[in-house]
Structures are given as C-alpha cells and as structure tokens.
C-alpha cells in the first residue's frame, strides 16, 4: 500500500494484466530473448564478483585469475559460470535472432527492434572478444593478435583501428588495459542503454505472431489464441531461466573453465590455436581465402565480405517484404537456412581443421 501510493504499482499491474503472448506451435521460441537477458544478468553479477580480485596488468592478470581459481573460495565456480554463461548467452542470442527471422517478427513496425537486437548481438560478440584477453593466457594472447590484425585489414581506417584497439603497435599492457576498460565500462554502458531501448520497443509493439498463423486465424474467422504475460508467460519464462541456470551450474561444475599457460609474447603460437566457437566461421573462411585475389589482399576481401554479409542480414526488415507489405517468406527462410548452414558448417570445419 505504502509503496503503491509512491510508485504507482497499480498502473504497472494494469499494464501487465493487458499484455498478452500469442499461443501457437512456435511459442517456445519466444523464451530465448528472456533467456539471453537472464544470462546477461548472470554475466553482470559474476563479472562484478570477479572484479574484486582481478588485476588488469600483464604481470598480474594471469596470476590474479590463478589466485581466483585456486585460493578464493568458490572462485573456480564464479569464473567458470562467467565463462560458460558468456558462451550460452551468445548461443541464446543467435537462437533468438534466427527465430525472430524465421517467424518474421522483424516486420513493420518492428524494424528498430530488430536493428537494436542486431546491435546487441554485435556488442555481445565484442564482450566475448574483449573478455577473452583478460586472463592473459597463450590462447587469448594469440587470438587477440589475430583479431586485431584482422581489424587492420579494414579498408582505409584499418591500421588506425588496429592501433586504437591495441593501444600501440603490439599487443601488450596497453591492450590489456584498453580491453579491460571496454569490457567493464564502455560495453556495459552502451549495452544497458541499447537493451533498455530494445525492451521498450518490445513492450511498445507487443509480441508478433507469424504471418502464417495470422492468415490461418483470419481465414477461419477466429482470434489468435493468447495467454496473459503475467503470470502465465512470466512463470513459464522463469522456469526456462531456472533450466538455463541448472545447465550453467552443471557445465561450470563438471567442466570448469581452464586457465591455460601464461601468455609469453616471445613464444611461438602453439599448434591448434583457434578463437571462441562464435568466431570460428569467419576464422575458417579467412583460412581458406588465398592470400591474394586478383590484385586485392585476401584478408581484406574476407573482411569486406563479412561486413557486406552482416549489413545485408541486419537490413533484413527492409528487403524481406515486397511493396505491398507482403513477406517474401521463401526468400527470408532460404536466407536464414543458408546463414545457419554457413555458420554451423564453417564453425565445425574451423574446429576440426
């Protein structure tokens, strides 16, 4: 009562009571956005905890993570949960993105919701890339070397961009400080802002139903079945979060995240070095592109290719419908399947070869 008077809880309750979620054969895909959000929350919480002990300098970073893993009580668990949740969050975000594409939920007026979601996925990848270096181990050191070298092949601004990312000519203390700053300050700030915009847009436009279901219901003259968001959908979502947490706990406890060897800038890159799974597809693509294509550098061709592919996919809402506003369903589904096939096949190849 006291809080209601001061916070206007009745209006929130009223809002929640009117919010509905469509029920159909693909309703399960609606849970993945919430799961991604939940895992982001886990990342924030465990990230704050790790900050209590982590030291972002080349002489102390590895040792501080080793200290967390071996001396701090439950340190191994907190770090493993942070690493596993990062991977599961990116997986959930990819599933969420492809389900939105396949269910054609990006259609007018939800173009900005789609675009903000794509930007959030880009930020999640940036989180992964910047966080990967922080333990300052051999694999992360060389992955960052390759990653920033790839940035150098961006036309025109490449060398300046690579220098900006590295904080100098080479990977060193300057890079670690920068990546730490990006990882714990810049990216969380931008992500929080964009996440708020994304969630406000989801609230504003409600949850979309697939066009096929809309058509079916229209033809049969009945309304699309719906369930109240609160408590029906919210409790189901909560169960999905609980399942995600269970999976996370199992993975972290059974497969604790390894620390590896401390980075040595003067040691040779070890055999079988590869980036995180979500960068494997571009990694393998670059591996098979020849060093020169006609007069152009292979790396640059690859980078421009990825850029164009990402831009084409990000602009999905603008080419997915015809002038009459009808969804080009086959084209979008075909593009989605091709994209999933490319990413999964090249990721597997990148892992194996």
């Amino acid at each position, binding site marked *: 009562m006291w809080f209601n008077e001061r916070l206007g809880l009745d209006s929130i309750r009223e809002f929640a009571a009117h919010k509905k979620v469509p029920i159909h054969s693909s309703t399960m895909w609606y849970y993945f956005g919430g799961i991604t959000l939940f895992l982001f929350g886990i990342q924030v919480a465990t990230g704050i905890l790790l900050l*209590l002990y982590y030291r972002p300098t080349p002489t102390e970073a590895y040792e501080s993570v080793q200290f967390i893993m071996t*001396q*701090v*009580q439950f*340190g191994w668990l907190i770090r493993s949960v942070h690493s596993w949740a990062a991977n599961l969050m990116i997986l959930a975000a990819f599933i969420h993105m492809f389900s939105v594409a396949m269910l054609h939920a990006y259609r007018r007026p939800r173009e900005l919701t789609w675009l903000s979601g794509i930007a959030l996925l880009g930020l999640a990848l940036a989180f992964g890339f910047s966080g990967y270096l922080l333990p300052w181990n051999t694999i992360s050191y060389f992955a960052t070397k390759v990653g920033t070298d790839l940035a150098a092949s961006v036309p025109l601004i490449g060398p300046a961009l690579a220098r900006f990312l590295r904080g100098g000519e080479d990977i060193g203390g300057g890079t670690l400080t920068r990546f730490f700053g990006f990882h714990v300050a810049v990216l969380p700030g931008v992500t929080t802002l964009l996440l708020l915009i994304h969630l406000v847009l989801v609230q504003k436009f409600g949850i979309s139903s697939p066009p096929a279901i809309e058509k079916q219901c229209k033809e049969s003259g009945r309304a699309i079945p719906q369930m109240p968001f609160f408590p029906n959908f919210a409790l189901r979502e909560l169960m999905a979060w609980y399942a995600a947490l269970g999976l996370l706990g199992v993975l972290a406890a059974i497969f604790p995240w390894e620390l590896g060897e401390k980075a040595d800038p003067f040691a040779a890159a070890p055999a079988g070095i590869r980036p995180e799974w979500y960068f494997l597809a571009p990694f393998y693509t670059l591996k098979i592109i020849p060093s020169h294509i006609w007069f152009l550098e292979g790396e640059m061709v690859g980078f421009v290719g990825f850029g164009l592919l990402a831009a084409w996919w990000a602009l999905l809402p603008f080419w997915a419908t015809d002038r009459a506003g009808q969804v080009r369903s086959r084209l979008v589904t075909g593009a989605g399947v091709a994209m999933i096939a490319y990413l999964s096949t090249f990721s597997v190849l990148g892992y194996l070869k």
Partner: protein
Amino acid sequence: MADERRSLIRWLLGGGLLASVSSFIYPVLRFVNPPDIPEAPVNEVSAGKVQDLPPNQARIVRFGSKPVLLIHSSETEWRAFSAICTHLNCTVQFQQSTNQIWCACHNGFYDLNGKVVSGPPPTPLEEFTVRIRGEEVVISRRA
C-alpha cells in the same frame, strides 16, 4: 484433503526455492570474503649500516609487510617502534624539532619511549629491539 495437498505442495515448492536460493548465495558470500594469505613470520630485519643514519635522524624500515620507525636518537642510542599509529593506522614520523614521534593524520604525539604524550592515540606504540652488529643495525621483535 485438497487443502492439505495444496499446503504440502506450497511447502515443497517454498522449501525448494529457499534451498536453491541459499545455494546461490552461499558461494557468493564465501567468494567475497578474501582468503587469508599466510606470510612467513619475520622476527628480525637488517636496517642498513650505522653510518647511513646520522644521530637525531629517523627512517622507516620494512619489517615484513609492516613499517617500523628506526630512530637514531643520540650518538649511542637507537630506538625502533611500530610506525603504525594506534589511533587509526596512519604511519607516524619522527619530529626533530620536538624530539617526539608525530602522527600527522590527527596530531597524535608519542615520546621516544613510544608512550602517548598528547592527541587521540589510545595506546603506546609497540617497541622493537635495536642491536648493532659490527656496522650493521638489526631490528628484532621483542620477546
């Protein structure tokens, strides 16, 4: 009967929820508590050569991880005290003009026996033993 069943389910659900929330909070509480890092006990340190510290001068010396104030109070007299003020842990210094030990944080004064002269410190400074071995000044913990 239905009510009993419902209350049993409520207990089970509530208990399960409480148990799982506790299992999340417990590791976090243990994690935030920093582990004790055992230090090798230090009982004696070398504070350098006699000629490095002229009479009526003082210097802070590392005694393990703690600072000790070494004072060469007269030609033949050496003294050493814990340099941590007993008031709020600031590091004290030797004041030549008053021939006293002074804590700049809250204007606490100790005499050259470590006893409180004025200001807020509640207890005297811990005293250490100083010995001269040849040309070397050695500080050791009092038994």
